[in-house]
Structure formats: C-alpha cells, structure tokens
C-alpha cells in the first residue's frame, strides 16, 4: 500500500544571523494510509518545523518528503492542518471561519454553508455560527479550527498540539471526539503532542523524537483496542515505556 507520509533522512537547518541552527537531522519514518500516528518530543525539538515540512509550507534542507507518493503541495493535495497557535480569522464569524477552506477551494456558496454547518455540529458547536472568535473560549476556537480542517475532506490531517491549552475535562472529551471522527471518516492523522498519555490514548503508533537536532529515537506500536482505558495495566506500561524514552531526552544536555 502507498504510504500516506514518507520521510527519508530529512534534515532542516535555519540560518539565524550568521550562525545556522540544525533543527532536524536525518529523520526517517512513515505513516500508513488511515493510520493514527502521534509524535512526541521535547519542546523546541522541531515538531512544528516537521509539520510545516510535511504540509509543504517549507522545503527540507535535504532528504526526501513524499505525501501519497508525491512532494507535498497544498494546491494539489488536501491537507487539514490544525496549527498550534490560534489560526482563526478574527473578522469572520465561526461559520465564516469553517467555510474558509471550502472558499479557497472554490466550493459553491450554498454547498459551503451546508458542509460547514455539518462539521460545526460534529464538533459540537451548533448555535455558535454567528459568534466571532473573540467571543468564544480557547477550546471552542480549537474546535472551530478542527471543523474548518475537516470540512475540506482532507486526505491528511496534521495536528500540532491541538489540545495543549485545554483543561483536563475538555481535553479528554476532545480526544474521544477526535477518535470518533477518525473512525467515522477514515482519515490519516499525524498528531503532535508532548503529552505522553495523550499519545498512548490516541495513537496506533507513537514516534518519539530526540532533542534538537531531532531524529527518531523510538517508534512504539500501541496494540490496544479503542476505546482505551487510561488506568488499565497495559496502558500504563505503554505510558511508562514512552515516558522513559521521553525523559532520557529531557535529562541529557
């Protein structure tokens, strides 16, 4: 089967002033179609950079990146990217924001509204269509961004710590919702987090990155059926395994 994402010895350097910063070094892994993969790694190790490379926003300095067999190009492929920072258009209502991707892809207006409303319902935001971003909570904003990304029927969903600033309850609610959506829509998801428990709860495979310059430290298959019980012994043992690998990266300097 064709790989959804294929990364082969990808490196990325940034030139900052006169010196250069090596963020990613010789990174190799792949993601299968319809797979749910989580990436965990210490802060500043290059997870967001990696996501920008996979979504075609930036080229790698060297190495090969293929998304469904071709170099990533958002003009020809459909990516649903959920950014780490707030990425809603403040001058558009919630509905207008969810319609944005469809609008860029020249979907007809009547269709657009119908689709947008369906996805707003999916993320539980019916009734908030006419609110502006500054009138809704942080968690609601993230859900709007998720609805916007899903509305274009993406081939690939890329999420950058989408639930990082949610409170514990909303976070676990959103995690369950995301798994529901994923099993319903049959999508490939690459999900970045630095919360190990979240990764074990969501992913079929967890990719642990080293600290900067980052490469793959370990890839762990989570062989647990969904929905997963966070307090079950196998869950905890997966969590401990990944935490150990993760903490090694935090401690070494």
């Amino acid at each position, binding site marked *: 089967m064709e790989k959804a994402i294929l990364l082969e010895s990808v490196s990325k350097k940034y030139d900052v002033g006169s010196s250069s910063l090596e963020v990613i070094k010789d990174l190799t892994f792949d993601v299968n179609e319809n797979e749910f993969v989580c990436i965990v790694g210490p802060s500043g190790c290059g997870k967001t950079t990696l996501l920008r490379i996979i979504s075609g926003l930036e080229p790698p300095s060297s190495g090969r990146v293929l998304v469904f067999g071709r170099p990533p190009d958002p003009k020809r492929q459909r990516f649903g990217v959920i950014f780490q920072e707030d*990425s809603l258009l403040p001058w558009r209502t919630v509905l207008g924001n969810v319609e944005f991707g469809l609008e860029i892809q020249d979907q007809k207006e009547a269709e657009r509204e119908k689709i947008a409303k369906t996805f707003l319902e999916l993320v539980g935001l019916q009734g908030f269509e006419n609110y502006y971003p500054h009138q809704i909570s942080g968690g609601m904003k993230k859900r709007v961004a998720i609805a916007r990304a899903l509305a274009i029927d993406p081939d690939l969903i890329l999420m950058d710590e989408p639930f990082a600033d949610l409170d514990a309850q909303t976070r676990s609610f959103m995690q369950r919702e995301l798994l529901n959506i994923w099993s319903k829509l049959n999508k490939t998801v690459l999900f970045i987090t630095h919360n190990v428990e979240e990764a074990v709860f969501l992913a079929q495979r967890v990719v642990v990155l080293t600290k900067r310059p980052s490469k793959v430290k370990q890839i762990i298959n989570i062989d647990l059926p969904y929905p997963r019980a966070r307090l079950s012994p196998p869950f905890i043992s997966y969590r401990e395994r990944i935490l150990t690998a993760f903490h090694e990266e935090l401690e070494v300097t």
Partner: protein
Amino acid sequence: MRKLYLRMRSLLLASTSVIIFFILWELAALYLPSPYFPDPYSVLKAFITIITVGDIDGYTLAWHTLMSLERVLLGFVVGSATGVPIGILLGIKPTLKNAVTPIIEPIRFIPPIAWIPLSIVLLIGMYRYIFLIWVGVFFPVLLDTIAGVKRTSITLIQMARTFGADNKKIITKIIFPGSLPEIMNGLRVGLGVGWMCIVAAEMIGGEPVGLGRLILKYANLLQIDTVIVGMITIGLVGLAMNYFILFLEKRLFRWRVEIKA
C-alpha cells in the same frame, strides 16, 4: 441612571466651554485695536447673509460647500484608489518599499501649497484640485495601509497556504480584510487632511465657488466676518466627515475587541 448623569455632565461641560469661548472672543473683539477683527455677532450676521442671500457673486454657503465637497471627494477617491493598492504592494514587498522609501519620505513633507505652482504649470481645471487634494490624502492612506499589511499574522497566511490559497487569494482574503482597520484609519485621516487642503487647492483655478474661494474672495475685500464664516464651515464639515467615518468603523469592525472595549 448613572450613565444619563454622566452624559448630562459632559454635555454641560461641553456647552460651558463653548460659551466661554464666545465670551473670550467677544472680549477680544472689544479690546483688540484692529477694526477688522469681527465679534461673534457680526459673524453670525454674515453667516445668515451667506446662507440666505449668497455672496457678492450670488453663490450661497450650501453651494460653496457642495462644490468644495465634490472636489475633495474626487481627490479622496483618487487618493484612496492609489494609496491602498500601492500600500498593499509595498507592505508585502519589503525590498520594493526600501527601494522607494528615499523617494516617498521627503515628498511626504512637502505641503500642498508648495505644489501649487507646479500644478498650475502642468494641470488644468478639475485636475488641479484633484491633484492638490490627492497630495493630502495619499500619504496617510499609504502609510496606514503599509502598517496594516505588516501587522498581518504569519500564522493566518500559513493557514491559508495549507488550504492551497495562491497569492491573489491570500491578498484578498487574508491581508486586505486583516488590514482593513488600519486602512479605514488611514482613510479617515486622509479625508481630513484632504479637506484641510481645500483652501490651498482653491487658491488656483478661476472658478468663483468653493469654501476656499469664499475665504479668499472676502479676504481681498477685507470682510473678515465672512472669512470666518468660511473657516467655521470648513471646521464643522471636517468634523462631521470624521464622525461619519468613525461611525462606519464602529459598525464594520465589531469583530475587533479593542473597539468594543
């Protein structure tokens, strides 16, 4: 209740200062040695004459105002139609902006009056007015548009790119709407400055109508009361235009938290 009280108080304060202003003016008229300095009452009389009868050529105040408004609005339209697109272009192309800054910056400080001789030599009729008003409108609009474009969030642009947006869509759907608050501010300031250029613009051009003309006509006749009528009208119309755009801004930018607060 408290709101009403505060409103009444500020209204009272405002009218008190207006009354004090007129008393000071009256006193100044009494004690200043110049026979040409009119008191408020003779200005009021001149006002009524110009409104009802018209000036020495028979043009009423409404007519003068309309003609000036037409000229300023034309210049304003040309000023915005050039200032906004050029501002967006310079905002998204920093190299180009750096290249033209040494040309634009000094020109910006040349007052409209200094352009009069050149515009007499080079332009005719309405084009002169439009050009001189344009000089006033263009720069505030340009600078605020550039500032607005620069404030555009990179995350929003990247977000649009991941949906496959090309440069045209990024400009029309992200950069332009995102800069609209600054652009509107530039338009407001530009309209005000353009309006203030009206006297300079009307110093030339043979036509006898316009508020600037009215002032110059009566200045030559040494009838300062009517000159002041022209000045006050310019001030009040400018004020009205400013409030009109502020009102539009409030309605347009309800999504802005700053304006709501």
